[in-house]
């Protein structure tokens, strides 16, 4: 396929040439802090404050948006939170003195806090030092530039209005259209099987029910859906559902294993905003993670999809065994001209809960995660995304809360920025989480009734209670970004509301407390 010139790419962006016919180039949603504007080209969700929202609507001849909460009250609330957090941070400084706190308070980022644990699985000490040094320099520059160009941006996020309250609706919904899949991956987070979630009492939802769900999500103001499974590519109505999403103003995106349903998927690939193929390693590493040798088929699917569509990426579940292969995976993605690599932390969910402690990355690997990702992305010039559960590993290197916030990097956003839905329609905070407990009538919330559940005070349980975090999260500068890390990992360790036990800062805090 002929590579488009840079001029053609610029013209594509300017003319919105690559959008489906039904696509709306912009959508707009009022939030307590202001508004969120969705742009399809370039692809971005832009969070703006109230003044910007007022000007944007006025400039475009629209009536000014109205907010339920007065502006002054919102500001007061933020300042109150700031005072509270500052007090707790001061108290805890003497207890923990984490690197993040020290740097935030001094504003120097001199890197005087050296690690005593030397990673052993990821290369020689000199290579490790080099990576860490590069990361430190990059992040120091980032922090300094943020301070220079955005003097109003605080070192902490306490006064960031985005984090004051849950959004009015999720940004995206992750719909598990089916739990049928023939692959049988040993770490499958949904426990997918060839028969799926069809039982004598309940059946998986079909097209009409998912269309009703799309109606509900559109009415709530959801921007994107991520369609997955199981293997959704085998569903005969997948393309019809994607069309329906566009018609309702929602962008459909898709994850597939590439192992099944490829011919049909190629026919409808253009109907998705982005398609990612799960690829957990190259060659033998794929089999080591998944339990069978499917690399050749996944590779063929990636190549075929890339022939049809530019926005093709790969999802990589990072485990102890494929961590050392990340650089090679980036090189592969670059060679295949993929649009992105998305790195996902292995979760103790579904079949992944069995043997989780042997498969998950080590603490040393978690500490090296960001340096290795940044170095690899820079070396291969490939776009890398990470999932929300990696935020503690990013925060550990102290990039600055403001920098993370400007990139909309937030930790556990289940039940807030995102929701999940099981194949039988049960609503969940995220795809890895169990459905909320049933109500007095024995019914669990359903995704096609999202709006009636969303504003309940107890909605999504611990997923929305990160402000009540225990130490060391309570006094961490990054709490409002990181939100205490992954709730699913914490639940697996025994206490869903506890700090993420794999956060490097939590590991260090607990080891020093013993």
């Amino acid at each position, binding site marked *: 396929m002929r590579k488009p010139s840079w001029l053609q790419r610029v013209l594509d962006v300017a003319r919105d040439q690559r959008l489906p016919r039904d696509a*709306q*180039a912009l959508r*707009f*949603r009022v939030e*307590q802090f*202001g*508004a969120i*504007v969705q*742009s399809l080209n*370039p692809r*971005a969700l*832009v*969070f703006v*404050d109230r*003044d*910007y*929202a*007022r*000007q944007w609507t006025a400039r*475009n001849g629209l*009536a000014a948006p109205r907010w*339920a909460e007065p502006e002054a009250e919102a500001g007061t609330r933020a300042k109150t939170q700031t005072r509270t957090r500052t007090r707790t941070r001061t108290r805890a400084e003497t207890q923990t003195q984490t690197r993040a706190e020290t740097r935030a308070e001094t504003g120097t980022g001199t890197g005087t806090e050296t690690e005593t644990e030397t990673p052993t699985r990821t290369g020689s000490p000199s290579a490790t030092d080099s990576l860490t040094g590069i990361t430190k320099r*990059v992040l120091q*520059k980032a922090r300094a*530039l943020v301070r220079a*160009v955005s003097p109003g941006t605080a070192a902490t996020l306490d006064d960031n209005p*985005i984090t004051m309250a849950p959004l*009015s609706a999720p*940004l*995206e919904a992750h719909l598990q259209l089916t739990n049928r899949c023939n692959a049988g991956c040993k770490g499958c987070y949904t426990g997918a099987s060839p028969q799926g979630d069809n039982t004598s009492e309940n059946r998986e939802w079909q097209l009409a029910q998912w269309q009703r769900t799309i109606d509900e999500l559109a009415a709530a*103001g959801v921007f*994107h859906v*991520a*369609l997955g499974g199981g293997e959704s590519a085998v569903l005969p109505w997948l393309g019809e559902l994607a069309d329906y999403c566009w018609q309702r*103003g929602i962008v459909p*995106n*898709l*994850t597939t294993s590439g192992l099944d349903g490829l011919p049909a998927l190629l026919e409808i690939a253009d109907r998705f905003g982005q*398609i*990612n193929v799960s690829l957990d390693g190259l060659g033998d590493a794929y089999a080591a993670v998944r339990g069978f040798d499917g690399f050749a088929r996944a590779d063929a699917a990636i190549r075929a999809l890339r022939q049809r569509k530019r926005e093709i990426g790969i*999802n990589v579940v990072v485990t102890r065994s494929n961590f050392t292969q990340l650089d090679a995976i980036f090189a592969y993605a670059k060679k295949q001209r993929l649009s*992105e690599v*998305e790195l*996902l932390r292995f979760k103790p969910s579904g079949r992944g809960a069995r043997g989780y402690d042997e498969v998950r990355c080590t603490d040393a690997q978690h500490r090296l995660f960001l340096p290795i990702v*940044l170095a690899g*992305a820079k070396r291969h010039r490939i776009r*890398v*995304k990470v*999932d*929300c*559960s990696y935020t503690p590993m990013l925060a550990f290197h102290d990039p600055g809360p403001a*920098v993370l916030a*400007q*990139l*909309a*990097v*937030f930790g556990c956003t289940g039940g807030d920025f*995102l929701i999940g839905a099981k194949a039988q329609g049960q609503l969940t905070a*995220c*795809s890895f989480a169990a459905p909320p407990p049933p109500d007095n009538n024995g019914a669990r919330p359903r995704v096609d009734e999202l709006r009636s559940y969303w504003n309940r005070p107890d909605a999504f349980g611990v997923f929305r209670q990160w402000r009540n975090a225990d130490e060391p999260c309570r006094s961490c500068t990054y709490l409002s970004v990181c939100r205490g890390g992954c709730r699913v990992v914490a639940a697996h360790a025994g206490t869903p509301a506890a700090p993420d036990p794999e956060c490097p800062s939590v590991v260090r805090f607990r080891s020093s407390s013993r």
Partner: protein
Amino acid sequence: MARRGKILAIKWGMNPNSSSLGVDVTFLIAGAAMIAMATPVVGALLRIRGQRQVNNALASTSRAGAVDNTADASSGSNDA
């Protein structure tokens, strides 16, 4: 005089992954300089596209079943 307003955050790309929220960390390489440069560009695009979007919306108001949050905002019904 009205305050100018700020872009608070930009979440780049779309997330096809059906399990978690994917965020772009590549911008950390170029650091805040890139963020600072990208923000006014995105702002300009929003202005240009916003006007076009309104024009398109006016031209297609009769399209049945279309959900347009811009229209919601114009009617003031989308309170947070």
